[in-house]
């Protein structure tokens, strides 16, 4: 199923990588806004931290899949970026939980 709008000729006029780029930019603005305006938003520190870490993991996964081209790769290399993201994210989560105790 095509993920981008089609022209009358059936050719995509916006590339999938452009859609991903715009999504990455939007997610970056969300991360920045959560940090900048958290005093007004009032999220607990742990919720804020885990939310922006989750957004970072999603962004990293999109970069690996669509920018680095790993979605077209099979075997262990397919998951190299996702596995790497899980490693620091797990350790960071553990450390932040430790700090919150």
């Amino acid at each position, binding site marked *: 199923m095509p993920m981008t709008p089609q022209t009358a000729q059936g050719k995509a006029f916006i590339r999938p990588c452009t859609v991903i780029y715009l999504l990455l930019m939007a997610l970056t603005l969300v991360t920045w806004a959560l940090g900048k305006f958290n005093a007004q938003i009032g999220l607990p520190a742990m919720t804020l931290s885990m939310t922006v870490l989750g957004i970072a993991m999603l962004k990293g996964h999109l970069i690996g899949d*669509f920018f*680095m081209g790993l979605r077209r790769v099979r075997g262990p290399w397919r998951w190299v970026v996702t596995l790497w993201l899980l490693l620091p994210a797990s350790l960071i989560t553990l*450390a*932040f939980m430790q*700090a919150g105790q």
Partner: protein
Amino acid sequence: MTDKLKQPPGDLAIWIFICAELSVFAVFFAAYAFTRAKHVELFNQYQQTLNTNYALINTLALITSSYFVVRAVAAIREGSQRGCARWLLAAIAMGALFLVVKSMEYQHHFSHGVTLSTNTFYMFYISLTFFHFMHVIMGMVILAAVALKARRGAYTADRHTGVETGASYWHMVDLVWIILFPLVYVMR
């Protein structure tokens, strides 16, 4: 559906190198987080001295540069050598913007007497971001070399491993910053 590749785009050696680099940064991130756990007040206090607007501009610049690199790879796959070189030059310009903004940020802190030995937070902030800063410079040199070769017609639609190799390295630099930005500037 197209057949999937056995190996990631570019030279396999660069992927081994990327794995090594990512491992080093993962250790750095974990060290930051676990040290922070022991000095939460200090880290939260000095994190507030960082300029998140600069960090936002830098994140947008690196993501944009990565997008330009994706377009450069797409251009060479379509056989456009000049198009490839142009997209790479645009990516390098975004990398330069990152360096300028980061230098302004360093200048601000250094002019206020901040050094590596000011406190543990600044030690991590300076060393982590400067280590990444050096990778941006390295990535720009690689992209410049690839752009020059593309302009000279060294790559074609069928033979462009060099472009994909340079692109993979640059995306790795972006990937690292994607974690570094929330960890150092936002998470508290």
